[in-house]
């Protein structure tokens, strides 16, 4: 959120290059230097987002999805970070801008909704002031205008008695209400793209549904593009136009939402879907857990990074890295040597019985101890 005056440069108003995607991310890499070595948190990610569309970015913790969203925004710590690649957004090359230039874009054209509204909001400022900040900065409103616009924004995000609530402090609001305030701040200047990083994690399911509905309504009204970053496939399934699945810093599959669910190519995506308990399953149904855990990004495994946990992994997977490619539809990209076809792996049969794979063939005998040590591979 743009906090201080960034020299109200309003040159973004003339951009409007309507043809071509709104956001183009090309070969983005972000690494962190740590005492243990270089962590490649984002490792060569490319994608585009069109005006008005919703892109879901899905991954487990440690997959790099949050670092990716922050790398796009330019919100990275100043030290020990190496970023390469380019991010073009509505005519700007964000990766070439310094912080003061970015400030004229943040909040105005490109804004962010953070996961934890308690820490993202300033605890000692009234919410009206916080909403008004970007209005005054980017749209040049005076105090009274900003105040009345803030009231309207609070009303539009469904906060009851907004005239009174503008004077409240964040601690006086519940988690769901705070997230609504965050949305009001993010949308204040009618941005063209909103990056929502786990916007509903930590909220109750009932409130989550309200917040996601609200975001979708506002998006339709204002024709914004939204990037919804989440670990929960359920959140994006009915809300995103396209989905990117990330694993170990890379995109492993990208497709229009229905295609992703109905014609899943990458075994990781399938495994992620299968590990979610579903209401329609009878109670006590055994879940298809993914054995093991994501790799260490300082020393990622050779070949496909999912191979150590993949039940279909073959020698080729452990030796060479599968590129992100398409078969048939150009919209559907995946990084797998043996993609699934109708849910069945195309991996060739193995002659010797699988001994090395960490596959989690569920031990059916319920009384069996789970001694296959699923997520307990010895720590370094």
């Amino acid at each position: 959120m743009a906090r201080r005056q960034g020299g109200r440069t309003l040159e973004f108003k003339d951009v409007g290059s309507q043809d071509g995607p709104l956001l183009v991310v090309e070969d983005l890499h972000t690494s962190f230097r740590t005492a243990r070595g270089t962590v490649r948190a984002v490792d060569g990610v490319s994608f585009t987002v069109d005006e008005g569309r919703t892109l879901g970015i899905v991954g487990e913790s440690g997959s790099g999805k949050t670092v990716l969203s922050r790398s796009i925004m330019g919100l990275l710590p100043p030290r020990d970070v190496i970023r390469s690649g380019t991010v073009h957004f509505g005519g700007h090359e964000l990766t070439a801008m310094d912080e003061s230039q970015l400030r004229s874009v943040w909040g105005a054209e490109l804004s962010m909704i953070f996961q934890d509204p308690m820490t993202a909001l300033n605890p000692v400022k009234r919410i009206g002031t916080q909403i008004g900040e970007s209005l005054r900065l980017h749209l040049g409103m005076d105090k009274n205008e900003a105040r009345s616009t803030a009231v309207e924004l609070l009303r539009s995000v469904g906060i009851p008695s907004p005239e009174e609530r503008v004077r409240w402090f964040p601690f006086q609001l519940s988690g769901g209400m705070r997230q609504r305030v965050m949305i009001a701040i993010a949308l204040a200047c009618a941005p063209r793209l909103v990056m929502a990083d786990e916007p509903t994690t930590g909220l109750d399911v009932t409130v989550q549904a309200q917040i996601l509905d609200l975001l979708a309504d506002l998006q339709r009204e204002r024709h914004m593009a939204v990037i919804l970053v989440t670990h929960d496939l359920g959140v994006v399934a009915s809300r995103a136009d396209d989905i990117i699945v990330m694993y170990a810093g890379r995109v492993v599959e990208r497709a229009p939402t229905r295609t992703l669910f109905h014609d899943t190519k990458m075994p990781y995506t399938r495994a992620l879907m299968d590990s979610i308990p579903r209401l329609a399953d009878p109670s006590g149904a055994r879940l298809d857990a993914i054995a093991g855990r994501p790799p260490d990004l300082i020393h990622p495994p050779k070949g496909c990074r999912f191979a150590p946990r993949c039940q279909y992994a073959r020698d080729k997977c452990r030796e060479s890295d599968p590129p992100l490619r398409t078969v048939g539809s150009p919209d559907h990209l995946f990084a797998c040597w043996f993609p699934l076809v109708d849910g069945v792996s195309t991996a060739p049969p193995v002659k010797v019985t699988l001994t090395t794979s960490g596959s989690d063939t569920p031990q059916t005998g319920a009384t069996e101890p789970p001694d296959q040590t699923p997520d307990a591979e010895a720590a370094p």
Partner: protein
Amino acid sequence: MTETLDSGTIANQSGDVVLDVRDLVVEFKSGRQRVQAVSGITFQVRRGETLGLVGESGCGKSTTGRTLVQVQPATSGVIDYQGTDLNTLKGRALRQVRTKIQMIFQDPISSLNPRRRIKDIVAEPLVIWGRGTKPERAAKVREMLEAVGIDPDAAGDRRPGEFSGGQCQRISIARALMAEPDLLICDEPVSALDVSVQAQILNLLADLKARFQLTMVFIAHDLAVVKNVSDRVAVMYLGKLVEVAGSDELYRSAAHPYTEALLASIPEPDPDHTANHKALTGELPSPLNPPSGCRFRTRCPYAQERCAAEEPPLRELAPGHQVACHFPVGPLGQAAPAAATA
């Protein structure tokens, strides 16, 4: 395993019921006022079953769980554990019963002491009770770590900081099982974990439950998770139980409008899932000043005048299916006549 603990108080095996909770009330002080987090709930847990307890944050489900292990004292009511009212126990007698009722918490990392080694953390319950010799305890630690899928040789000398959230949760589970409990209270044990790890832990709990013949109370806000692990589910709203039913039954024929709304708001990982949005409006009212009559009426799409005037009791709608609603919905109730606006 020989049964070393045999408290004289645990005698009366009242049939199948391990835990019989009656009119449990838990109050907290808030300034000069008193807030009821739990306002008179009654339920039973039968031997070998898993009872799920669901509701939004602030509904009192965690407080209920904490009161069951007496980390939080009850204000009134009875928690009858095999013939003993836990609310009346103190000191050694209480501690002794507690070995039989163990709890697993939401945040696995902060529930393990970061400065101690895994094998010492897991051995602690036996050390406290002076059970077994050192080698016997070490053997038991190995057994439990193996049971939860942690390699005792690789992990025993490490400290919690070296493990992921899922592994820490496994270690917490191993520790909880050391004292050979009867009853395991799990308070949101998977809500801080990634979905893939969540599935591992849920499967593990199912395995351990069968292996050690545990009875469980599983507290969570995610109805899909609760349904997966539970035999029966109790839905809580603002300190009260609103519906109790078998988990498949609850999903098939939810009778309370709140349960219906909870089910509808779960995001299904399916793009074709038509969001039959009965998304709730509003938020949980303040427990300082709960609504009159039915506590859910302020958010209920079917609320009538009667709902404000008269509190609906928890009543049996079908065998094993209880609901607290004047106008139950779904196949079991005729939806409220002419759904009035609130």
